[in-house]
């Protein structure tokens, strides 16, 4: 990655643990990001308003305010990506944060490579205008306006629901989508909770787009949370 490409990007880290902040700072600045830090929720809120960062990495376990409350407050006006960082790897917390407007999550302990990938995709998502009609993932290309997906140049036969699902995931590639948000988006409000639909279509989609459906490389499962389309 070209360091200059990230030159303007300012990332706000809100975490009370000095060591974690230090680690994030080293890792991210080595990739060319500018960093600003906050140790408490209040400081974080002020810093977000002052510096208007391109992305916020927010720890859910803060000493002064509840992280999910802070998230809601931030989301009232802050529309750029927020990545949740949490030692709580309980699915319920993560799902709640995602439903409250977080873009992605990382459970501590995490691999730095993973962190960077999440940050990159979150930032790029913002850059990529949704109008871009063609998406390419390795041998898979998706022609959004024409509702056509190709693998190795050959058209894949997809039902309209399958295509909608693929398009939704692909447009949010690199980012986790919760089960419920996908159900809501593709099937509508009445289908929230009906995860069996999702399972069936994900399995079908995998058979059609993956090289080896038993070792998915594109459509990945986030245990208990949702799916992520790999970039």
């Amino acid at each position, binding site marked *: 990655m070209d360091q200059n490409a990230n030159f303007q990007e300012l990332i706000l880290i809100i975490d009370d643990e000095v060591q974690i902040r230090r680690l994030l700072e080293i890792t991210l600045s080595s990739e060319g990001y500018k960093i600003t830090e906050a140790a408490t929720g209040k400081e974080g809120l002020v810093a977000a308003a002052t510096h208007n960062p391109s992305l916020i990495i927010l720890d859910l376990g803060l000493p002064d305010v509840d992280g999910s409350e802070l998230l809601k407050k931030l989301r009232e006006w802050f529309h750029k990506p927020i990545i949740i960082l949490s030692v709580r790897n309980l*699915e319920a917390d993560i799902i709640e944060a995602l439903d409250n407007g977080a873009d992605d999550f990382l459970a501590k302990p995490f691999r730095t490579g993973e962190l960077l990938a999440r940050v990159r995709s979150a930032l790029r998502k913002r850059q990529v205008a949704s109008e871009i009609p063609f998406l390419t993932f390795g041998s898979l290309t998706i022609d959004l306006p024409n509702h056509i997906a190709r693998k190795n140049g050959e058209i894949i036969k997809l039902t309209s629901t399958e295509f909608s699902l693929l398009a939704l995931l692909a447009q949010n590639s690199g980012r986790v989508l919760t089960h419920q948000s996908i159900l809501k988006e593709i099937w509508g409000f009445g289908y929230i909770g009906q995860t069996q*639909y999702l*399972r*069936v279509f994900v399995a079908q989609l995998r058979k059609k787009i993956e090289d080896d459906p*038993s*070792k*998915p490389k594109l459509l990945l499962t986030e245990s208990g949370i949702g799916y992520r389309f790999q970039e």
Partner: protein
Amino acid sequence: MDNNDFRPDPDELLASLKLEEEKSKRGKLKIFFGMCAGVGKTYTMLKTAHAEKAKNNDIVIGYIETHNRKETNELVEGFEVIPRKNFQYKTAMVQEMDLDAIIARKPQIVIVDELAHTNAPGSRHSKRFQDVREILDSGINVYTTLNVQHLESRSDTVSQITGIIIRETIPDEIFETADEIEVIDLTPDELLQRMAEGKVYTQERSKEAVANFFRKGNITALREMALRLVADRVDKQLHDYMQLKRIKGPWKSGLHLLVAVSHTQQSARLLRWAKNLSYTMGGDLQAIYVETAYKLNSREKDQLNKNVTLARQLGIKLRFVTNSDMVKAIVDFAQKENITHIIIGKPRVRNLVNLLRLSNFLNKLIRYSGNIDLYILGSDIQTREKFKKNISFPSFTSKFHQYLVTSFIIIITALIFFLLTDYIGYQVVSFALLFVVSILAFFFGRGPILLAATLSAMIWDYFFIPPPYTLHVDRPEDMLMLIMFFIIALLNGVLTSRIKIQEMKIRVREERTNALYQLTKELSTATGVEEVLSIAKNDISKYFKLRSRILLRNESNQLDFSSQNDKEIHLSGNDLSVASWTFQHSAKAGKNTDTLPSCNFTFYPLKGNQMNLGVIAVQQVKIFTQGEEQFWEAFISQISGKLEREFLRNMARQAFLLTESDKLYKTLFNSISHELRIPVATIMGASDSLLSTHHPFEVQNELSQEIFKASKRLNRLIENLLNMSRLESGRITPLLDWCDIHDLINKVAENLRDELAPFNLHIVIPDDMPFVKIDFGLMEQVLHNLLYNATQYALGSENLRVKAFFDNGFLTLQVMDRGPGFQRNELPLIFNKFYRVEGSKAGGTGLGLSIAKGFVEAHKGTIAVENRQNGGAKFTIKIPTEILQEEIN
């Protein structure tokens, strides 16, 4: 003679040991006993107390009544006096002994004057002897004073001698079980002399007293009574001693007395007399009440209750027996209990019927009692007269309109047959009337039936038997028939109504048995204290029509008042203190009892075999009858029993958890400290090396790898510990959601990519594998642990196999390796916490498999392990699950 003949009865021995043991825990009671007021009991008591004080014993005055006698007043000085408690009763201020202050002060000996005193209303106990009992129970010795006339069994006789009714009495049991009795004796002349000198009362009152109570004849009689009582006591003690020490002597015992009690006032006297007799004879005494078909009216019920209470106060064991044949019931019981003497009262004879009945009763009793002696106590004029006013012919308790209805029906029947008499003849009419009387007997009491029988006989005679319209009967066969008619009608009616009453009693009994059975059944299936409480509450309201509230003990053996969530019965602070008292003393208290009767609720203790469980408060509308009380006690003892089992089970569980957590803690400490130290040492060493030395890139890389590995190992440990603690706390509830098994296994395989690298992993899933409902996260962890273990222990082998299929409602997951497998004796142990296979390599805490087991069990599933035929281990998980039936396209 054979030595065995002197052997004391083991039961008796046990009883006396138990009594001694109980006594040693309790305080000792010393009674200064006299024939009447003025003999110097209080004076002697204080003298004795001074002597004790001189021996450095801690002795205080709880309550003293000096009657302003100069000598006595002087003796009080030098003692600590516990201030009396003042409290408001209605408009007056009253003073009573401060029971709680005495118990709190806890001296060695407390002086409490006038044992027979009746406390002012609003005190905890209605009688002072109850206060004294409580003091004794708390381990404090008591000195007290008592006059002979206050003994329950003597009060009657004293009343007879002196003509003064004694209201303040104490149960004989207190006197009998007192540890020491000191009799204060004075000759009547000396006493009168003292009175004359004004040493007892003021001159004025003395004269009055001498005229009324303190006549020389009276005093002599009272003196004799007091001295005899004490002599008897000495005698009894000697006897007890001989019995205990197997001294052969003139045994008086072997005497077992039985007194038959009825619902009459006379029985009260009978009880006292029997008590005296048994005391003098040195035999034990029981009482029996026979419940017959006879229906008690409310006054008789009251008297019966009084008699029962009296028996209890006198320390007589009273048995209730139901039998329509009174003689048979008494004799049967007597034979069973080896009774040697039966005591009965001579019933009042008012008329011929009663006389017949009495002689019949006595004859039968004499005939059947065999070698058992009979004592028949004469009736007493005074009580008889009092009683006469209370008399009502109990059989005729039926309401007035019942008489009207029966008469009306007889007349109608007669009228109908009168019209038919030309066709069917007059004789048949008798059968018709008889038939009607028999039918009526099913619906009406004895009185109306007697009336119906008489009426129908007269109607038949007057209107039907020729010559009609006269009572005269011409033909002798008609006369015979008329007499037979009357007798049959009567018998019919009486027998039927008796059967009816008997039936009713049986039904009540049946209902009670049934209720108890229901309760037992419901309780047997109940789990947890909460459920037991709700069953208890429901059944009490169902069978007793009472609102109730149960207060339970807490861990520190106090009543727990915190559960104030009950809307039905709200207990005030005062009520709660009564509840506490009930709990501590395991005796009932509150309304309709001797203790704190001013309270609105009645409190019964819930007693278990090993501990007191709590208290049940009920709002009693009326006092229980004897039968109801027994039923109630049986009922709450069932509840207590169940509650105790629940409590004990909880305690056992807690104890188990405690030892478990202790064990866990120790193992954890040993295992974790090692497991933590290794990766930490690696990280420290490697990073230190990176910091201090400039290594070539390859070495740097290798060191970083080591750090990374060590931190992964640490992370795994932490994950395991967190999962274990989640399991331990029981907070695991699987969030079931539809799951594609392919997805699950692929995910686990992906996470373990590095570890699986040296193996060939075969995933076997049938094509028609349905979606199942499981908790993805938990099962991922389970599979992860199993597969990770396989990669660690089957290292060097090639193939690993994960198999999944659905069969008959169960999801089966299998993980198979070709490693060394397990030793046969290890197979049952490997799911245990911290269990590690012998000789297993370093790294690992022995938690992985127990976590897997816990998570599978959270799914209500099972996990098993076996060795494979050609080597290796096979883990099989079976989880009950629903599958996706609907077609989705």
